[in-house]
């Protein structure tokens, strides 16, 4: 098999997903608390605090604007953390993959199992924020639940670049670069806190190249019950980014794990 061939995952990826899910079940309480507490803190602190000065943005209260942006951001954040720190832990100190690779489960299955698991964690986190937002009266109707599969997909699309970083990592320190140079700029620039349209034209062009922008453009309207503009374009940009990075991540993991 050529190392560059497209990913060929089998059903074994579900065993990898299940492994992570069973480990997570043990720390479920803490994890869920974290999923609820963190957004609650941000939303109340920034949404209410700053929202009083901002008033309305894009035809909605600032609190609503921020809560919907946060769902997209958390999908990226949770999936990135899991695909870097947790995957590295399983790959290097625990040698979990080394054990798995002595079975019929192969590298591609591990990569896809991890992607699915990262998507699942994003889904849990996104749903938690949605629930908090709903409790605070931000969500208008049940259609907002459509955001759940979108958040899952968003998580997978951001887990793949995380895996690329992990495939090169020699220690946990490696991840701070990605965090500072890639994730933080997206957090600040991609429309979580303010509309991308308020940026200068040139900046807007560059921000369109960042995948979080497209995730925000899809997720926000779903949460607040507005029609999505250019859904096809945003979805294609997000999924295209996810597919390309998934392929690259699979190739790099084959190289890293088969040595």
């Amino acid at each position: 098999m050529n190392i560059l061939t497209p990913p060929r995952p089998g059903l074994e990826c579900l065993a990898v997903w299940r492994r992570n899910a069973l480990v997570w079940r043990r720390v479920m309480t803490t994890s869920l608390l974290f999923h609820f507490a963190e957004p609650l803190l941000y939303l109340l602190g920034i949404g209410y605090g700053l929202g009083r000065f901002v008033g309305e943005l894009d035809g909605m209260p600032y609190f609503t604007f921020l809560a919907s942006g946060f769902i997209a951001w958390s999908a990226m954040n949770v999936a990135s953390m899991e695909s870097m720190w947790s995957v590295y832990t399983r790959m290097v100190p625990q040698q979990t993959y080394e054990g798995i690779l002595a079975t019929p489960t192969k590298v591609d299955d591990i990569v896809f199992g991890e992607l699915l698991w990262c998507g699942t964690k994003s889904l849990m986190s996104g749903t938690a924020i949605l629930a908090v937002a709903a409790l605070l009266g931000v969500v208008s109707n049940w259609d907002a639940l459509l955001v759940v599969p979108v958040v899952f997909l968003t998580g997978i699309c951001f887990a793949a670049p995380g895996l690329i970083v992990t495939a090169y990592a020699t220690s946990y320190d490696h991840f701070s670069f990605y965090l500072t140079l890639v994730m933080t700029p997206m957090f600040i620039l991609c429309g979580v806190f303010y509309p991308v349209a308020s940026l200068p034209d040139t900046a807007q062009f560059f921000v369109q190249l960042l995948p979080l922008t497209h995730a925000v453009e899809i997720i926000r309207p779903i949460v607040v019950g507005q029609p999505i503009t250019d859904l096809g374009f945003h979805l294609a940009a997000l999924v295209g980014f996810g597919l390309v990075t998934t392929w690259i991540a699979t190739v790099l993991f084959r190289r890293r794990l088969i040595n």
Partner: protein
Amino acid sequence: MVAVADLSFDIQPQSCFGLLGPNGAGKTTTLRMLLGQSPRSGGVLEVFGQDINHGRRAIRQRTGVVPQADNLDPDFTVRENLAMYGSYFRLDPKVMDERIPTLLDMVELAPRANDRISTLSGGMKRRLTLARALVNDPQLLVLDEPTTGLDPQARHMIWSLIHQMKRSGKTILLTTHYMEEAERLCDDVIVIDEGSLLAKGSPSELIETFCESTVLEIRGDVKEIRIQSLPANWRTEEAGESLYIYADDSQALEDFSKELIGMLCLHRRAMLEDVFLRLTGRALRG
């Protein structure tokens, strides 16, 4: 970097085959290639008569592996480790429910079934790793230095388990640098160094071919012994404070040892270790 360059061997079904060599000889690389966990640039590698690149999945289904470094899953208990491993083979959970208690009994870990991995001793971890390698009831069992770092009790237990596996008809491929282990367990061995084959045969054949039948190990002031005056067909080797004399004439060696006063003598039959040292030299490896 070339780790394995010139190496050919066949393993007979239901036998125990030993892959011997000093550290860095290419033992682990050979095993990893065999399992498709290391790339190879050329050559033919078949397991169960199938090329490992094409029959990978089918080969894995019938192979069990005990790796050199423990990679048990620290996030799970003893029992869960076995169940989880079975899921990577996509084994029926019902089959696993039956098989796991048997495996735990076999490696004497049933009382620890619900304990976390971090609470186990090194020997217990090894035993569990062996049980884990058996979850798919493999035909071929690959053991990479299965007893390194274990105390004698644990080592003997692993040996008896390997004997049991052999009796039950499994083919065993093991690497070790304990020659006593290879002599006890293996029907056939190969000795490799720097990725190339040095010798192959049964342990007794190798001793016969590459070494005189008896050895006299002398410790003490061995500089006083005049090596030049010894019979020409005696082979000597000096290592630090020790002198080794290899000869076929056991009686002559015995008589010679009686003349040595104030020195510690051990007269014994030649062992695989003597062959190993002769083939790979006494120089230390990195």
